[in-house]
C-alpha cells in the first residue's frame, strides 16, 4: 500500500471528542466522534484509530497532529495545541472562504467569532459562566421533561403554538417549563420554546455580520434550530457539511500549516 500523508485535528470538547483527518490536498477523509467521558486522552486515541481507519491510513502516515478544545492539553499524540476559537475559525473558513460570523453552539459554551474575507479573526466572544444558550441547557431540560435528547428536534418542528420562556437562567427556565406543563401546554410547543431560548441567548452575545455560519454539536443534531434562526434573522444561514467537526478540521488545517 502506498503511504499517504495525513494531518490530524483533535477537538476534545466538554461533551464530545472529535477527530478529523485531512490528506495533503486538504480533503476531509476521516472522522470519528465519541463522548469525551472522563479519560480525554483515551477517548482521543480511540477516535484517532477509527478516523484513520476511515481514511485508510495508519499512525505512520500522520505528519502532524494539533489538538484543541477543553481537553487540548491531554492528547498524548498531539504535537501542539490551538484554542477552539482559532480552530473553529479555520474550519469554517475552509468551508466558506469569505467574511463570516461563526456561531458555534457547543455542549458547554457558545462562541461568536467574526472573520474577515482573508480568514483573519477580527474578534470573538464566548458565553459567560452560564449554561443559558448551550447544549447543557437542552440536556438539563430533556432530563426534566423526560424526553430523549435526540427526539427534541422532531418535537420542536411539530410545534404549532410556541411557548415563550423569558428567563436567562436555566433554573428559572425550568420553573417556567413546569408552569407551562401545569397549564397544559403541549410538549412540542415547550420544546420549541426551549430552542427559541437557546437562539435568543446566543444572538444576544454580539452583533452579526452578513454571512452567518452555524456549527457545533447542538446545531448538528438539531437542524430545526437553524431554520428558526433563519426565521428570526430573516436571512439564509450557512451550515457546513459536518457542523460538529469544524473545530477538528481547523486543528488539522493548523497541523498542515505549521
Amino acid at each position, binding site marked *: 500500500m502506498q503511504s499517504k500523508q495525513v494531518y490530524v485535528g483533535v477537538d476534545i470538547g466538554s461533551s464530545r471528542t472529535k477527530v478529523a483527518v485531512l490528506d495533503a490536498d486538504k480533503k476531509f477523509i476521516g472522522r470519528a466522534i465519541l463522548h469525551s467521558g472522563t479519560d480525554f486522552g483515551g477517548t482521543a486515541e480511540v477516535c484517532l484509530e477509527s478516523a484513520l481507519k476511515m481514511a485508510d491510513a495508519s499512525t505512520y502516515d500522520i505528519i502532524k497532529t494539533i489538538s484543541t478544545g477543553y481537553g487540548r492539553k491531554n492528547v498524548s499524540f498531539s504535537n501542539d495545541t490551538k484554542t477552539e476559537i482559532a480552530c473553529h475559525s479555520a474550519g469554517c473558513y475552509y468551508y466558506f472562504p469569505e467574511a463570516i460570523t461563526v456561531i458555534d453552539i457547543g455542549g458547554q459554551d457558545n462562541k461568536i467569532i467574526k472573520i474577515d474575507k482573508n480568514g*483573519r479573526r477580527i474578534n470573538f466572544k464566548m458565553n459567560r*459562566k452560564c449554561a443559558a444558550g448551550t447544549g447543557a441547557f437542552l440536556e438539563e431540560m430533556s432530563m426534566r421533561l423526560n424526553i430523549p435528547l435526540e427526539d427534541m428536534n422532531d418535537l420542536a418542528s411539530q410545534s404549532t403554538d410556541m411557548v415563550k420562556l423569558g428567563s436567562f437562567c436555566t433554573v428559572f427556565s425550568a420553573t417556567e417549563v413546569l408552569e407551562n406543563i401545569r397549564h397544559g401546554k403541549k410538549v412540542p410547543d415547550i420544546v420549541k420554546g426551549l430552542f427559541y431560548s437557546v437562539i435568543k441567548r446566543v444572538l444576544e452575545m454580539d452583533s452579526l455580520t452578513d454571512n452567518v455560519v452555524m456549527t457545533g454539536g447542538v446545531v448538528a443534531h438539531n437542524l430545526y434550530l437553524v431554520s428558526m434562526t433563519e426565521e428570526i434573522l430573516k436571512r439564509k444561514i450557512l451550515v457546513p457539511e459536518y457542523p460538529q467537526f469544524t473545530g477538528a478540521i481547523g486543528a488539522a488545517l493548523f497541523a498542515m500549516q505549521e
Partner: protein
Amino acid sequence: MAEEKKVARKKLRTAEAMGKFMADYYYELDNAAKTGEKKIAWCTSVGPAEILRAMGFLVYFPETHSAMLGSSRMATDYIPYANALDYSPEVCSYMTADIGAFLQGVTPLSKAFPGIQSIPKPDVLVFNTNQCRDVRDWFSWFARRFNVPIVGVDGNRHVKVVTDTIVESNAKQMENLIPPLEKVIGKKFDIDKLREAVALSRKCSNLWKDILEVASVKPSPLTFFDGCTLMGPAVVARGTQPAVDIYEQLLEEMKERVKDKEGAVENEKFRIYWDGMPVWGRLRAHSELFAGLNANVLASTYCSSWIFTALDPAEPFKSMARAYSELFNSRSDEYKEEYIKEKIKLYGIDGIIFHDAKTCPYNTNCRYGMSKRLENETGIPSLIINGDLNDLRLVSDEQMKTNVEAFIEQLAENK
C-alpha cells in the same frame, strides 16, 4: 504531548524590603490596638488619609486587608457568612469577605505576621464614596459592630470635568471632618502637619507614577501583577516618609532593569493593558498565563488609581478635594476613554483586557459599550473577561485560559 509551559517569574529585589515594610505597618497597628497607645482610624483606600496622619492617627485600610483575603484565597470561604446576613452575593466581595472573615474571627494577617490575631479595632471610621457606595455600607457595618463614630465625604461620581464647585464642596466636607476627629483623638488639628502629610503624599504619588511609567519602555521591566503588590505603600502609607523611601529604592531598581534591558516577561511580544480590578486569588496564575504566552500585562487603570498629581501643600484641603475627585473610578465614560487612549499611546499597547468583575460595577468599565467604542476609535482589540476581585465562585479558570489564549493568538495573527 503538548504540555503546559512552565514560567519562570523574575523577582524584584525590593520585594523583600516591601514585605518588611508591610510587616512593620501591621505590627505597629496591632501594637496600638493592644496597648491603646495610639488611636486607630479606618480609612477607605482613596479616602482622606492625609488628614488622619496629620492628626496623629494610625491608619488602617480594610480594602488592603480584603485584598489579602482574596490573594490568600480565603475570601470565598467567608463571603457566604455575610450573604447569610442579607448582604447579596452580588455586592462588593471586598466588603462581604471582610465582614464574613470578621464574623468567623479569622484574618490572613495571622498567617502573614505571626502574633497578630485580629484586625485592629477602630476608634473612628472615615470613608469617601468617590469610589463607590459599598465602602460606606461596609464601614457602617463595622461602626455599628464596634459602636464607634463614622464620618466621611460623599464624593461625586461620573464626573467629566472636576469643576471648582465640586472641589469646594469636597474640600468643605473634608474640613467638616476635623471637629469629630479632634474629639476622637483629643488633640487640636494643626494645618502645618496636614501640609507635611500632603507634601509627603504628593512625593509618594510622584514616585509611584514614575515607577508605573517605567513600563512604557520595551521590554517593560514591570507587570500589572507586580504592581498589584508593589502598590501597598501608596495605599497604606501615603503621607509618610517610609513610603517615599521605599519607592525611591524601587524606582532605582526599575531604572537598573531598564538600563539592563531586563523585561519582566521573557521575550515580550505583546503589550497588554488591564482595565478593572485584579482577580486577587488568581494573581499568580494570571501572571503566569500571560507570561507563558510572551504577553506582558504592563499597565492598568487600577494601579494608577493611587496617583494624585493635584496634591499641593499650599492648599491642602482644596488640593486633596481635587486629587480625590480626579480619581479615574469616579469619572465619566468620556473622560475614562480619553484616559485609556492616552495610556495606549504611552505604553505602546497591543490589546486591552476588560475585567468585568461581577461584584464591582464601579470598577468595571465595559458594561456600557466602552470596549467597542475604544476598539472602533483606536483599532486596538479588546477582550472582556468575566470574573471577580474576591469571589472565586464567579471565576472560571478554563474560560479565562481559553479566552486569553485565543486573544493572544488573534493578536499574533494580526501583528
